[in-house]
């Protein structure tokens, strides 16, 4: 394992210190317990708090700021943060309108945020994001994972909160975006967790993991690499089967890199996806291409599609000013 680190135990602290130094105009990092907060939360606004294991940067800390999150709780690499972090973050950023937790649906995140929600003395609610269609739902399982669609939920709920919607309304928007969002990805290589010091999984030089999770968890199956268009077509098949868009539906297309895949390939995927969506009568009205929900240094990418309506479009377009998502 070759990484830019001094000591494995210091990675998170030093990395967050760098984040703080580079974006002092936007965010403040709090240690013990650890969370990243918007430097100037807006009074009277519902406080949005997300978080999760680190290793997915810029998600979530890179999305703290005006128009998006008020705080992000950062766990160890790929390990959910703990309730004390969530409680401290909530105390720190809430301004009287309640707290909305945005949580990726993994056992760890879900249980830790659930405990924080129970322990917190402030009115609060949880939006559970479960956009990954790779693993089919069934009544007996934990359900689908929350992956790159989380960014879309955070952006849109962030904009909704800025317009002054109350806690219940913000939660309703979040749940609605989540239902309108589906994602699926594929990995070419494993990632390497710094503390583990070796690749999470082994994969052959001509294989890909189809339906991979953002921690390098296995997906639907291991299979030989195929041309980009064939990969895109199957990903979109799964996504559109889930979303079942009406003919002429408007969508946001988010091509997300897992870390080690060059932007050149991500744009190529966007091109392939655009062709297929057009052929299936779906209009791409907004796009986001880049490494946003990563899995450390994993090579691969996911596609996310969100069905957009005029309200969601307006919220997506609303100004945002964070370390990693910025427009006006």
């Amino acid at each position: 394992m070759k990484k830019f680190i001094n000591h494995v135990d210091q990675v998170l602290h030093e990395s967050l210190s760098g984040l703080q130094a580079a974006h002092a105009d936007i965010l403040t990092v709090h240690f013990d317990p650890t969370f990243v907060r918007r430097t100037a939360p807006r009074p009277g606004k519902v406080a949005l708090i997300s978080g999760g294991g680190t290793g997915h940067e810029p998600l979530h800390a890179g999305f703290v700021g005006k128009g998006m999150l008020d705080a992000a709780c950062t766990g160890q690499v790929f390990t959910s943060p703990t309730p004390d972090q969530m409680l401290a973050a909530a105390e720190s950023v809430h301004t009287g309108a309640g707290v909305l937790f945005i949580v990726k649906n993994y056992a760890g995140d879900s249980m830790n945020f659930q405990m924080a929600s129970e322990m917190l003395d402030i009115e609060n609610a949880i939006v559970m994001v479960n956009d990954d269609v790779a693993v089919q739902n069934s009544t007996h399982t934990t359900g689908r994972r929350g992956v790159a669609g989380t960014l879309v939920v955070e952006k849109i709920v962030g904009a909704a909160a800025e317009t002054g919607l109350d806690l219940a309304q913000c939660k309703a928007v979040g749940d609605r975006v989540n239902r309108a969002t589906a994602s699926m990805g594929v990995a070419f290589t494993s990632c390497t967790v710094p503390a583990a010091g070796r690749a999470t999984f082994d994969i052959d030089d001509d294989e890909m993991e189809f339906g991979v999770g953002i921690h390098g968890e296995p997906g639907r199956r291991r299979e030989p690499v195929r041309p980009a268009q064939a990969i895109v077509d199957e990903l979109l098949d799964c996504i559109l089967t889930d979303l079942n868009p009406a003919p002429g539906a408007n969508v946001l297309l988010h091509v997300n890199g897992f870390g080690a895949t060059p932007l050149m390939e991500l744009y190529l995927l966007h091109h392939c996806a655009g062709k297929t969506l057009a052929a299936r009568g779906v209009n791409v009205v907004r796009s986001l291409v880049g490494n946003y929900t990563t899995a450390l240094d994993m090579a691969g990418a996911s596609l996310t599609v969100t069905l957009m309506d005029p309200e969601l479009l307006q919220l997506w377009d609303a100004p945002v000013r964070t370390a990693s998502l910025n427009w006006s």
Partner: protein
Amino acid sequence: MNTQDILQSIAAVQVSILRHEPDIEALDRAIGDGDHFINVRRGCEVMAELSPSLQGLTPADALNRIGMKLLSTIGGASGPLISSFFLSMAATLKGAAEPDRRQFAAAFVAGVDAIKSRGKADLGEKTMLDTLIPVARLLVRLNEEGASLADLCVAAKQEATQGMLATRDMVATKGRAHFLGERAIGHIDPGSKSCEVAIHAVCDLMTHR
């Protein structure tokens, strides 16, 4: 079972977990995200740090402090589960200065129940519960039957190992391994393994001293 026993158990578990690093680590890499060993080690380290300050507390208070500390330290899926176990044991033992084996068994059962309800899981879902539930049942039964501590420890170790091994043939329906579907078959659940290691460590401590 007094606070001293608890502190010695903590130390024994830490040693044993560290000794099983390669197995535990490999299991979570195979069907999880590879961090289970690190999470559990972090929990052990913080318990060891905490240990001196627990001297002189009642078992309930000591277990409560452990539970709260683990809750804010481990994270992941195992964090809330393991800490719920300690917090619930603490609640059950409230008021007992030196709980007897029957009280301890009841507390263990309450701890395992807390994991079940926090994780919304039960036997056969390929989780740590496949180690813990059979052991909990055994403790109650053998205590009722008046078994000796030595017999009880031997049986508990066997039961833990058997429960852990049984996860190998299961499809997971909880935790990260459930994303694997059929592909998880053939792999032991990492949480069931670390619990088995912990139970062996405590049982060995109880018999060999």
